[in-house]
């Protein structure tokens, strides 16, 4: 690595114009992150025309800022309203919202902001030193590896939620079913499209999340309008206490590394990282039963993981020219419009763009931390707004956001339908978390499995013969079979007198 180009990247990042666009980017990103349903991909697409007149580096610094700024903002709605805007913040909503219900929304947001900052910054540092070496790792992941990874993810979904395991499994199965809507990924046969091409491309994640979590939750709460509101803490209590920090410290470090590593994988990396981080924290915790009821580690770990992953998802784009997700695809387009081709040649042909953008992320993360800490008090006060005012307002913003994904009014009807489903699930005690995550991982699992089988000529044993997928199969067997069996044996040995704690 050429150190002088890294340093000159700092000079680029600190140019006044670039600082300004970084600030604009992260502020806009944070705002759209807070507005439920509005996503960074749609926002960046809307802002594309503005970037024509900008210098390429400034343009990309701003657009990148929107992307990771939205990750910070998305946490706020996940915690306060239980409305995750991205697949990677679904798990944050579980314990984050539980904390908010206990009146600890402030500390939850404070921990999340610091966890996001540390995760993001650690990831940039790692990116700077080992990005070129790691770029190839993304390529070692083919259909076979994604199949096993998605399978691990679906098993981890089972660790979420505090309710019955069978209800989680049923919700996850429903999520897998909804994931099959659209054209068959291999044969192109329409499935569950009811003859309309509105459903031909399947259902967007945001629509499912906003329906099940957002609209479903709002409908459920309408029923309980008479119930006393949770106490809103004074601003003084909005600062996380010593206990919060003690519990989150290790979770943040583990989450940062998990997020960085999994974020490199295009397609599903960020979601997997938050899920893996949550599962790890639950496993190492002294008292796992706190999870789902407001464990601060369940916010700190996944939040540092998804921000680290957001940063490392730039690696495949900038070093290989592979966009890792929908937002990266729009950023790819933005670079192409500027006459810059993201790809293997970027780092040598345009070192100023590469390092300017990478180093601007340090600044961006600092700005976001500075923006979010004082704003926590303001956002927490949002909980004081009467539900009769907050609920319709949230629904309107959600509808606008959902419309903005494809500029399609059909999607708004879909959100309402899924909202009714979410309400029904909530009434019957089914959790939306496993549903939504299984939905995300389901399309990855199905398409990757069927691609693998075509490549392997139908031979399933090849999954264990390839080194990377073989190792992943070992991890899967270990976590999904051996550990639970061992635990069961041990609880049985620990005596009949002592009643085992229900999990």
């Amino acid at each position, binding site marked *: 690595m050429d150190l002088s180009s890294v340093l000159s990247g700092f000079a680029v990042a600190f140019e006044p114009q670039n600082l300004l666009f970084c600030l604009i980017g992260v502020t806009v990103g944070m705002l759209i992150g807070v507005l439920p349903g509005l996503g960074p*991909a*749609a926002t*960046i*697409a809307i802002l*594309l*025309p503005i970037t*024509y007149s900008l210098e390429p580096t400034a343009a990309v610094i701003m657009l990148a800022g929107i992307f990771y700024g939205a990750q910070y903002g998305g946490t706020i709605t996940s915690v306060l309203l239980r409305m995750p805007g991205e697949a990677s913040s679904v798990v944050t909503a579980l314990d984050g919202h539980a904390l908010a219900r206990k009146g600890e929304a402030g500390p939850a947001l404070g921990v999340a902001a610091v966890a996001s900052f540390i995760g993001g910054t650690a990831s940039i540092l790692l990116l700077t030193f080992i990005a070129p070496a790691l770029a190839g790792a*993304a*390529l*070692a*992941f*083919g*259909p*076979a590896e994604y199949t096993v990874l998605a399978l691990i993810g679906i098993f981890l979904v089972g660790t979420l939620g505090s309710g019955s395991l069978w209800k989680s499994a049923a919700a996850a199965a429903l999520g897998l079913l909804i994931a099959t809507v659209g*054209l*068959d*990924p*291999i*044969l*192109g*046969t*329409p499935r569950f499209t*009811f*003859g*309309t*091409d*509105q459903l*031909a*491309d399947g259902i967007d994640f945001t629509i499912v999340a906003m329906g099940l979590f957002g609209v479903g939750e709002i409908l459920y709460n309408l029923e309980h309008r008479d119930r006393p509101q949770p106490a809103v803490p004074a601003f003084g209590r909005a600062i996380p206490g010593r206990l919060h920090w003690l519990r989150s410290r290790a979770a943040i470090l583990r989450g940062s590394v998990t997020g960085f590593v999994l974020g490199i994988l*295009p*397609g599903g990396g960020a979601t997997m990282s938050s899920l893996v981080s949550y599962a790890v924290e639950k496993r190492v915790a002294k008292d796992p039963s706190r999870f789902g009821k407001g464990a601060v580690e369940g916010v700190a770990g996944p939040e540092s993981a998804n921000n680290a992953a957001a940063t490392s998802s730039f690696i495949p784009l900038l070093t*290989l*020219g*592979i*966009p890792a997700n*929908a937002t990266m*695809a*729009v*950023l*790819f*387009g*933005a670079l*192409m*419009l500027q*006459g810059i*081709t993201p*790809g*293997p*040649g970027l780092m040598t042909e345009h070192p100023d763009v590469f390092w300017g953008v990478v180093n601007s992320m340090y600044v961006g993360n600092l700005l976001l931390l500075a923006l979010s800490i004082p704003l926590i008090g303001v956002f927490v006060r949002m909980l004081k707004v009467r539900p009769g005012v907050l609920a319709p307002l949230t629904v309107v913003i959600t509808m606008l956001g959902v419309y903005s994904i*494809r*500029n*399609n*009014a*059909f999607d708004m*009807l879909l959100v309402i339908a899924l909202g009714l489903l979410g309400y029904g699930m909530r009434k019957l005690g089914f959790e939306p978390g496993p549903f939504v995550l299984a939905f995300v991982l389901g399309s990855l699992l199905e*398409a990757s499995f069927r*691609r693998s089988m*075509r*490549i392997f*000529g139908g031979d399933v044993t090849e999954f264990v013969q390839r080194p990377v997928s073989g190792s992943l199969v070992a991890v899967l067997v270990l976590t999904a079979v051996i550990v639970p069996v061992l635990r069961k044996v041990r609880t049985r040995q620990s005596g009949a007198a002592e009643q085992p704690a229900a999990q």
Partner: protein
Amino acid sequence: MNPFPRRGLLAGLAVSPLAAVAACQVQGGADAAEADFPTRAVDFMVPFDPGGSGDLVSRAVAEAAEEPLGQSLAVSNKPGANGAVGLKELLAGDADGYTIALAVKSLFAITPLAVDDPDAVVIDDFRIIATLTQEAYVLVVHADSPYQTLDDLLAAGSVDYATTGVGTGSQLSAQLLFTGAGIDATDVPFDGGAPAVTALLGQQVDAVSASLAETMPQIEAGELRAVAVFSEERSPFLNEVPTAVESGYDVVVDQRRFIVVPAEVGDEAAGVLSLAFEEARESPEYGQFLQDNYMDRWEVDSLEAKTHLSDAAAEYAALVEDAGLDLGEGS
């Protein structure tokens, strides 16, 4: 933009005759009003995801067309079903020339071979305002692979190749080639160009057919090697790579992009729009954009364009039938 587009099959059937009637009325009585078309901004609908080739070329040409048109052109994305969702909405809206859309050849020539849609849009529903680009498909292998030429690849016992999706030119070109060569080849459809190229970079598959824009950066970086292009003549961007036809396989598949309005739009509005885009195609920025994105110009009049599209549809259907292929059911 129309806030309540087609909601479903039934709603669509109910709306389209009404829209046609409304359009006729506008056309009949509004000649005078159209004389100073356009008096307000024109919506440019891109029926594809933001960031893709179709989106980029639309934004580039829209920017260049604003000045000659004298009004702003607002680009918005309405993706779905290879452009069918957006184009159906275009047909359901007012045929006044204030909404135009990008369209692609594959929707009219290839998608019908893979997807059975009784109310699919057909080219005669539209009036072509301007033709924009043609983009060749190119067959690439990994630089570390033993295959130096197309013949090397076809001599391999069996080939796994990635495609950019079902019912795409990527799938059609590769299937026609491998079936024609009579070798044992398995297609592995991915969701778009980037994942397909990624699979080849990781050597998960042996080959991929994709557009020049999707593969050129990797070809120039020396990661991938082009062994054939599926155009009639060699591509100016890859002059040393032979066409499939030169190598003895009569496979010509490309993607072409053009701008359409509903067929009912009056001559005057259509004429004004056409002139503006013809001027836009001459702008140096647009030229530079095409160069940077490995796109060739396709600039013909609308009659020739329509002939090309219907000929291509018939030709592809015949080729697929002769080869005994069924795109929709895999192979």
